[in-house]
């Protein structure tokens, strides 16, 4: 009984030893995080991978109604020269029931040039050009349908095909990235 009472007293009193325990534990925890972080961060893209950052595309070679694919950072980018008919359709479908609502005008800088990622937002396959129920792209892997603006319309993909950063260097050249 007496021993138990003494124990209780010790619990309540903050001793020098309690402080050392907590301080050692805290330093150890911070140290462990510092050791673990480099072990995890080494998996992130390395400097040379990050350095490959931009791609220039000559648009004059792409005729109306044609989609060209370019390899950018290990994945394809689609550049489509859209016809007037396709532009009209894309804008008309702005008002349709969209899974990831976005206006066509927000997805292009010049209406005839649709520049977007060629990687399905579901699980990363490359959608096929001018196929599917919406006259745009169709991903054969798990059946996602995209329209002529690259917006997801049907299937498991959650979002539209993303538009990468690009600028027009002149009327016939864009720089992606």
């Amino acid at each position, binding site marked *: 009984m007496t021993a138990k009472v003494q124990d209780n007293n010790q619990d309540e009193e903050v001793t020098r030893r309690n402080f050392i325990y907590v301080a050692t534990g805290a330093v150890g925890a911070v140290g462990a995080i510092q050791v673990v972080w480099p072990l*995890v961060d080494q*998996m*992130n*893209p*390395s400097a040379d*991978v990050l350095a490959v950052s931009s791609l220039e595309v000559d648009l004059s070679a792409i005729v109306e109604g044609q989609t060209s*694919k370019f*390899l950018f*950072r*290990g*994945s*394809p980018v689609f550049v489509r020269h859209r016809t007037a008919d396709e532009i009209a359709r894309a804008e008309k479908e702005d008002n349709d029931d969209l899974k990831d609502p976005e206006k066509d005008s927000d997805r292009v800088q010049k209406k005839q040039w649709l520049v977007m990622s060629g*990687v399905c937002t*579901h*699980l*990363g*396959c*490359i959608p096929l050009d001018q196929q599917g129920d919406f006259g745009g792209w169709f991903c*054969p*892997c*798990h*059946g996602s349908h995209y329209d002529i603006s690259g917006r997801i319309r049907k*299937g*498991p*993909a*959650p979002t539209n095909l993303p538009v990468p950063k690009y600028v027009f260097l002149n009327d016939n050249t864009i720089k992606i990235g």
Partner: protein
Amino acid sequence: MASKKFEPTNPAVKWVEDRLPIMNLVYGTLGAGYDAPRNLNYWWNFGSLAGFMLVVQILTGVILAMHYTPHVDMAFNSVEHIMRDVNYGHILRYVHANGASMFFVIVYIHILRGFYFGSYKSPREILWFLGIIIFLIMMATGFMGYVLPWGQMSFWGAKVITNLFSVFDDLLGTDGAIVRLLWGGFAVDNPTLNRFYSLHFLLPFVLAGVVILHIWALHIPGSTNPLGIDAKGPQDKLPFHPYYSAKDLFGLGVFIMIFGAFVFYVPNILGHPDNYIMANPMSTPAHIVPEWYYLPFYAILRSVESKLFGVLAMFGSILILFALPWLDVSKVRSLRFRPLSRFFFWIFVVNGIFLGWLGQASLEMEVFMGLTVFDFGQISTAYYFAYFLVILPWVSRKETPLPLPTSIAQHILDKNAPKEEV
């Protein structure tokens, strides 16, 4: 289950044993020191077969690693170099590639043996957990190994599977940071291949470690048996060696003949021809399928028309196994005495095989009465989860089991008793 102690007579062996009782460990786990139930049938052969396949995979894998080059420009050609130039290289690679399939067949049977005979029930829950962990490590290892030849299926399989983790990016709003961490780049590329190679080499040894824990946990209560009742005394048991070592060895002989038939006669039948085309990040094959042993889970993924829930359903379909000991509340282990549960179990097995078939079929294909592969995928996925979440909890509470034998020995005596003449 306490095992008998190894008593060496040879003084040299005794000298070693006194300092490191390693022979005693083997004697008590796989030798005459381990008393196993005397009524084990051939379904109990698959544990040792799986152990055998792990050894085969590590041995052939370490050798293949001596001839393989983990670089996107050279990996594909180095595999062709193994196939054409390295002495016996084609056999070693075919053994390794088909070995993975054989390993999975064996492990699937081993798991279903556990389902049927209630091996997951008390007091073997931890043993069951370790088995699921082994299965998960196997799946990760098999997947990464399939990427190494850097063919079209390797590349696109890697892309699809790593993209499964993008649901966590979507959830956390990290904009692809998790997937980039996995890839080491902006797409599946050289850093991805390198890390997969490193992990594919490492994980089998982790697996071997968990296998040791699995066997350790097995020897606490000892093996289950087809009757599912506890072995009570020496009349219910037989020493593992020579009785089950011999029985397992016979099974191994039969298995090696089947394995050999694949390796020597149809080595590519379980693979996909597109993997003999070098990886091309600009072109997705028209029809991506994973290795056959992932197909049921792939079918579950495809059956849910939401990326997040599809991925969760796929992972959940395996993780749900952890809950199995508590979903099935029946005190009776063996389905021999639970006819209704047995009926649903066999539907579960057929449904699993059907899911595998669905996993490789085109989603839009019509199967029966206007229903497509996608529709059947939803039905089969529903049954898969209903089996665990509805059927097992319900049937195990409601079903009246058949009378259990009083002991293993008594059951054998009754079975072998001469029929009384009238």
